[in-house]
């Protein structure tokens, strides 16, 4: 018989039957009464044992008074634990004492606060699946206000938890997409509508004049507007394609080759400015990534360093990789104009943001780079001092070449 029922029968705990029935325990039909109690005990124990939740009852010193099969299915273990605490049980089952530490902390929290506590607990089951329980523990007091026991029970909320996580992920994705849509609308509104307005105004002027010299002048102004519209349109299409390339393929991309491609593309600029490019790929020289993304990222960062060079010195660009656990950090450092980050922190990678007076700056480059980095689960950030230069960092998640 489990200890707390013993106590009930011996009269120490009176909550179950009350004073009157215990008074009759001294009468001659003692045997009949014991039978009745046994039946009642079996009835209640059956309910506790059949409840599809795990139940544990503790004495005020955190020793087990009762556990149901929902909590410990093995009968032998279940019998062992009665009268013991979690430390003894952990030793018995060869489990680390840290499990017992956590349970003791929760027990003390319920005992000391005098209130029900709730928490979520995720542990692997014997098959290694992660199971999440919602656990509740509450102290029970006797009529003198003394703590008589602490009841703990938990229900399996693994399915609900999974669903919540899926939903949270979906909400995150949706709000990111919504933000991108808002950005996109504003960029369409500004950058596409502006050249259209110019074209329609120029056409109005052309129509309203009969002077051929005047007409010719106005027509000559149409060309750059159309070119600008074309370029903006292409860049917008490209940025949308990144978002649609859901199944883009990763390959092992050699950073030296990737950089060489960029240097070849920018050779004229590099020569003109007398730019020096140094590299250090000793820690990581190959990154598993979609090649067109990596090419575009490296190209954008290097071409930005050239574009925003300091007028007083030749550009010096230093490109390095660093390993941090399973992550790779690529850094591109320059000695260029730099950016006032205090002023522009919020807008740094935002579409359409331009920080310098440069004729070819449209504010797409960094936005695209950020999109390409984030599409693959990475991060990008910048450190910069105006007039000294900038360092762009890209963190690639799990992109180290697989050991072959």
């Amino acid at each position, binding site marked *: 018989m489990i200890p707390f029922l013993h106590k009930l029968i011996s009269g120490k705990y009176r909550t179950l039957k009350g004073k009157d029935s215990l008074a009759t325990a001294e009468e001659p039909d003692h045997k009949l009464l014991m039978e009745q109690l046994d039946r009642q005990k079996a009835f209640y124990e059956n309910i506790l044992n059949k409840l599809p939740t795990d139940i544990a009852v503790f004495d005020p010193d955190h020793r087990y008074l009762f556990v149901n099969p929902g909590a410990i299915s093995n009968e032998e273990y279940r019998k062992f634990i009665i009268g013991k605490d979690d430390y003894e049980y952990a030793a018995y089952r060869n489990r680390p004492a840290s499990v017992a530490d956590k349970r003791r902390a929760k027990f003390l929290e319920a005992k000391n606060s005098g209130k029900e506590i709730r928490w979520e607990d995720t542990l692997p089951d014997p098959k290694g699946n992660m199971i999440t329980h919602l656990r509740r523990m509450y102290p029970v007091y006797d009529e003198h206000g003394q703590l008589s026991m602490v009841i703990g029970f938990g229900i399996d909320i693994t399915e609900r938890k999974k669903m919540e996580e899926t939903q949270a992920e979906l909400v995150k994705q949706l709000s990111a997409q919504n933000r991108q849509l808002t950005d996109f*609308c*504003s960029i369409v*509104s*500004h*950058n596409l*509508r*502006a050249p259209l*307005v*110019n074209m*329609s*105004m*120029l056409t109005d*002027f052309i129509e309203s004049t009969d002077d051929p010299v005047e007409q010719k002048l106005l027509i000559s*102004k149409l060309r*750059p*507007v159309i070119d600008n519209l074309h370029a903006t349109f292409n860049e917008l299409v490209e940025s949308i394609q990144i978002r649609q390339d859901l199944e883009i393929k990763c390959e092992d991309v050699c950073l030296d080759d990737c950089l060489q491609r960029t240097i070849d593309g920018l050779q004229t600029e590099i020569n003109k400015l007398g730019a020096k490019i140094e590299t250090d790929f000793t820690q990581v020289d190959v990154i598993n990534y979609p090649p067109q993304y990596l090419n575009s990222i490296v190209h954008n960062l290097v071409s930005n360093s050239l574009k925003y060079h300091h007028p007083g010195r030749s550009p010096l660009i230093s490109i390095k990789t660093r390993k941090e656990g399973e992550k790779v950090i690529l850094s591109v450092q320059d000695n260029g104009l730099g950016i006032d980050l205090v002023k522009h922190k919020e807008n740094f990678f935002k579409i*359409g943001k*331009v*920080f*310098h*007076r*440069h004729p070819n*700056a449209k*504010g797409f480059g960094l936005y695209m780079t950020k999109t390409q980095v984030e599409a693959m689960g990475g991060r990008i950030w910048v450190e910069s001092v105006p007039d000294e230069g900038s360092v762009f960092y890209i963190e690639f998640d799990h992109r180290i070449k697989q050991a072959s």
Partner: protein
Amino acid sequence: MKSIFLIDDDPIFVYLTRRIIASIDCPCQINEFTDGELAISHLASIGNQAEKLPDVIFLDLSMPVMDGWEFLKEYSDLKPKLKKDIALFIVSSSISPQEVERSKGYRAVTDFLIKPVEKRKIIEIMDNVKL
């Protein structure tokens, strides 16, 4: 002579606006600024010289370095120190209602004009300028 500050980085639009203003019968002095920062520092430097301050500001929103919104923030702080009552019009290619709404949060903004701005609107604005 009336004075206009045109704050816009789009050379074609500035050219077209100049042509419209030239075509109306109203002699004007036009100063151009290709971004908000150039305009705000100039305004700050002439703040107590009423004769140098403009009657009207046309402000674009999408500009490099300091965009129209950033300009408005600094302009609102500067305005009480300016020795002239200036009418400020946002002139944007944006058709976003959120931006129109946002502009209402700035007391310095007289109105929000969507590009293209019609000639008669400019005539109306210039007529309202009292010398």
